[in-house]
């Protein structure tokens, strides 16, 4: 066998190896697409842990215990009604999500928690939250309860200073805008950043709705 014949033979063998590798990769990909493995749009909370205790008063004056919304997927996020720019759009995204879910929205509890109990009275929440959807929860926590819940969820709440000589009721509240997703069993499963769109949440929420049993 001369050198050129040897190279030609080696080339054919290499080509065959590449072909085999490609075929195996294609078969592997095909097999993987059929498995129940799921990649989430949200950031998984691993290991999934029980959702923090959260008890307050809903906008309708009724007590609200997050744990009692069992068998429903829950989306919890924090804000305040005087927030002009970000919070209304967080609620608007939940409207879009509800529209996309259709009748399945009844199995998803949207829970807006005020970080501003001083100004966000239950009466104030009752004029704000149901304007987006009457099925949404708008929860006022007592200030000490809010501190505990903030610690348990690991969120930041910082109150700005009212303008000098101005209205003491005018201040901003810096706060975490994360969406926390809790599965039907009450486990905190996923988080989404404030910039997440309804379309980002939708497939994950649908998967959690279908996952009747488990974490």
């Amino acid at each position, binding site marked *: 066998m001369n050198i050129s014949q040897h190279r030609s033979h080696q080339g*054919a063998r290499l*080509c*065959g190896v*590449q*072909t085999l590798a*490609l*075929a195996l990769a*294609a078969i592997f990909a095909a097999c993987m697409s059929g498995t129940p493995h799921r990649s989430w749009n949200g950031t998984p909370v691993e290991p999934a842990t029980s959702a923090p205790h959260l008890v307050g008063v809903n906008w309708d004056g009724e007590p609200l215990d997050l744990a009692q919304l069992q068998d429903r997927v829950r989306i919890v996020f924090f804000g305040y*009604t*005087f*927030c*002009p*720019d*970000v919070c*209304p*759009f967080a*609620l*608007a*995204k939940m*409207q*879009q*999500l509800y*529209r*996309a*879910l*259709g009748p399945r929205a009844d199995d998803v509890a949207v829970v807006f928690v005020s970080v501003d109990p001083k*100004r966000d009275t239950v009466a*104030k929440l009752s*004029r*704000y939250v149901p*304007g*987006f959807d009457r099925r949404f929860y708008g929860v006022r926590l007592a200030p000490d309860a809010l501190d505990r819940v903030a610690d348990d969820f690991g969120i*930041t709440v910082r109150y*700005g200073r009212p303008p000098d000589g101005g209205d003491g009721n*005018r201040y*901003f509240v*810096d*706060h*975490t*805008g*994360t969406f926390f997703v809790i599965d039907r069993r009450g486990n905190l499963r996923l988080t989404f*950043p*404030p*910039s997440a*769109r*309804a*379309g*980002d*949440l*939708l497939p994950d929420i*649908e998967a959690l709705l279908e996952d009747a049993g488990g974490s």
Partner: protein
Amino acid sequence: MSHRRCSVWLRTRCARMLNAMIATFAIIGACVAPPAATETPVAAAGDLTVLAPAAIVLPSSAALYFAVVNHGNSDDTLLGISCTTARAVELHQSLEMHGVIRMRAHPEGFAVPAHGRLVLEPGGRHAMVVAPDLDETPRALDLTLHFARAGDVALRVPVVDPSDLATGDEAHS
């Protein structure tokens, strides 16, 4: 099938799959791309034109959004906004860092760079209407924008639903 023919068949197959995937993603991309904001000016003064005004008015808060295009060679500044049906209108910016939303006032105004644009949009620069004096949600707010060079611009801003401005309308199941 020989090695060579098999390899060519696989490559062709892979290329077709790749093209199909690219086409699929292109379709998805086209579907989810946000609609371009209307470029029809609704107000003008000097070198400036104002586009796509929208307001959201809620029981405790109200915010304004629009874009200003500067066609001139000189920078300008949006110094402030006045509204006859509000105590004040303030220029603010929402900022997000590590998931925490912060709001900062910009009493110095917002720059409108030469041959550039200023965009007030949800989650970014915006104008907050302080204590709007409204009996019910209006159909529009009448404002005057105050610019350092171009002067005053009267603007009628339609009130819209927040979901009309929130990104995410592509949420279809």
